[in-house]
């Protein structure tokens, strides 16, 4: 990792064959009060390639945020990773076993290699420190024992703030409460990119913002990615956002990825009934407004999952076999660079969905 003050923009090179992040059978477990535990992520595997953008979609409580936090080892005290692996490949092609990093190495790895934009921009800032001080704290913490000058800090922070289209002078000298929600969200993004990470996890980056501000955030993100080139995992329940910002989509349900594929494959031809249901619940931009189909029922409790497929109680395609088999991800269409279309459904051949989703250039 270069010194943070130096801007090392990775040119938008074509995605190489080595994944930047390779996750295998990741399980995230929460201890519960009565000495039991609940697995919020139940064996997730995927590869993310440099400069790629992956959208994690699904209803609330399906494990998206937990997966995101788990990838950067930011789980709360009651959370742990009992099994699975996270393999990160840095810019020099060196492999890093994220789950085995010691405290100090992890402290460095986070933010220098993998950073996160947290949900709820309101509470992500210390209310009693100015934005400039908080950005400075971040730079100083990764200065390798060197003491960066105030000028370096201001220059670097200003550069990032301009990147998210904010006026640095004003923002650096402001307290968090003096800024609007949209500005804070942008500052969080600037803060996350302060050290030029190659991996950025965004948790609901546009939730709770008005539609114009959402638009601005989406534009800023697209621009920054084109400019600096980082791989992105963003967690959202907004399918139109996924369609716009992502190269790939992974649908999560009850702690598992149940369908993956390129944006085009997923939105044109979803093969898991749950993904199809999510897409059908989005109103179309053009044409008559059809009766929007919602998915009946609600997700099962992770504490008492049914046998077989977790979705079967809500599934119109369910057959007897679904009660006994929890289907693995089946290959539907082979594509390079993790873009293969897969679905975890016994009857994926019978499921078809095609709908025009807002902003999807498909």
């Amino acid at each position: 990792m270069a010194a943070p003050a130096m801007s090392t923009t990775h040119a938008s090179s074509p995605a190489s064959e080595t994944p930047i992040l390779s996750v295998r059978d990741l399980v995230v477990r929460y201890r519960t009060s009565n000495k039991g535990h609940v697995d919020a992520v139940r064996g997730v595997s995927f590869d993310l390639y440099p400069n790629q953008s992956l959208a994690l979609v699904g209803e609330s409580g399906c494990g998206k945020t937990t997966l995101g936090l788990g990838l950067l080892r930011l789980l709360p005290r009651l959370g742990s990773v009992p099994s699975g692996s996270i393999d990160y490949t840095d810019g020099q092609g060196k492999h890093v076993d994220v789950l085995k990093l010691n405290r100090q190495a992890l402290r460095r790895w986070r933010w220098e290699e993998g950073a996160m934009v947290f949900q709820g921009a309101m509470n992500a800032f210390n209310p009693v420190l100015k934005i400039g001080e908080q950005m400075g704290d971040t730079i100083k913490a990764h200065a390798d024992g060197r003491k960066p000058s105030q000028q370096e800090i201001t220059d670097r922070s200003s550069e990032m703030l301009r990147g998210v289209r904010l006026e640095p002078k004003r923002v650096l000298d402001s307290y968090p409460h003096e800024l609007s929600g949209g500005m804070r969200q942008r500052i969080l993004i600037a803060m996350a990119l302060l050290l030029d990470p190659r991996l950025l996890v965004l948790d609901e980056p546009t939730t709770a913002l008005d539609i114009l501000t959402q638009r601005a955030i989406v534009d800023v993100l697209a621009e920054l990615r084109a400019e600096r080139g980082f791989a992105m995992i963003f967690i959202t329940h907004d399918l139109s956002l996924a369609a716009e910002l992502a190269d790939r989509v992974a649908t999560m349900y009850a702690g598992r990825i149940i369908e993956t594929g390129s944006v085009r494959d997923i939105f044109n031809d979803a093969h898991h009934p749950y993904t199809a249901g999510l897409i059908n619940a989005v109103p179309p931009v053009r044409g008559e407004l059809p009766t929007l189909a919602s998915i009946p029922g609600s997700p099962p409790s992770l504490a008492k999952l049914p046998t077989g497929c977790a979705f079967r109680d809500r599934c119109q395609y369910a057959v007897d076999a679904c009660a006994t088999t929890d289907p693995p991800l089946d290959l539907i269409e082979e594509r390079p660079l993790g873009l293969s279309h897969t679905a975890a459904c016994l009857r994926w051949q019978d499921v078809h969905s095609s709908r025009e989703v807002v902003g999807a250039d498909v």
Partner: protein
Amino acid sequence: MAVANPEVSGVRAPATNGVGKALVKVWRNYALRRVLRAIFVIWVVATAVFFLVRLLPGNPVQVYINSQIAQYGVSYEDAAASARSYFSFDPTTPLIVQYLQYLLGLLHGDLGISIATRGVPVIDVIGRYLPWTLFSVGIGMIISIVVGLLLGMVMAYRRGGVIDHGVTAVGSILHAIPNYIMAIMIVVILGAELGIYDVGAARGTITSGVEPSFSLSFFSDVMYHAQMPILTYVLTTAGTWALVMKSSTTQVLEEDYVMVARARGLGDNRIRGAYVGRNAVLPLVAQIATQAGFVVGGAIFVEQTFQYTGIGASLYAALQTRDYTVLQGILLILTASVVFANLIADLIYSVLDPRIRVGEGEA
């Protein structure tokens, strides 16, 4: 309440004349607003004290006459005559006249002259004894707050640990003991039973014959006399601070920005200080000021117990003789110091928490 009016008029219809504008401006300034409020409170207190003191059964002359009769067996007439020649104070002066004289004096910074000890200005009584009280209470509070806040933070970081359980148990017990009871316990246990310190020698604020000077021997003598009052204040309040700080810190530790700071890789010391500590102390600042008032109030009994001649002891003496002017003066100074502590807390608060400053200059 003349001070509040400019705000109202300023909001509804901006004052047009110069004075009105100036008042509106003053009211909008956070610090000045606090100061004006403090002055108002002190006036209310001065008035209340004035009348309350006079509601006490008996008056200085009556007390004097009674003591003359009891001590020397003189007749009531003789005692009354002697009282007339002794006191320049006439209890039959209309209350409202006395009150206006008192207020007028206050405006000039004049607290009047002691009734019972003729010729001694009240301000001299206060000037002589108050510093000792402020010294002992101040040192006690500082030690107590530093120890309490540090303990509280350690407890929050190691919830369920030995320190947590130990301090919680001991702190809760100490919290329930009023400081005058604690003072008696110290005299009985440490002084009388165990003989760890000499109850007699520790009386007063300095040993007679020791001259005030900037020397170690003078300082150690002062500390020798003040140590037991200080110990009392520390024992009765430190546990409370620890418990309050623990709960506040525990809450702040759950805040998103602490997790985000960790994710950003900030060092432990930076997070503990500027991220956790500073935010955890915020809600305590107001409590510290309020507590300061209680401690000063409690000092009256604590000082009496240790025979520490601070303001508490002189208040007690003035109460015995119904020395109205001294009572008024001391009570006013005590309340004023609490109001002042609150004022300081408000101002510190605005420095610690930028969100408080929002009101400033707001239309």
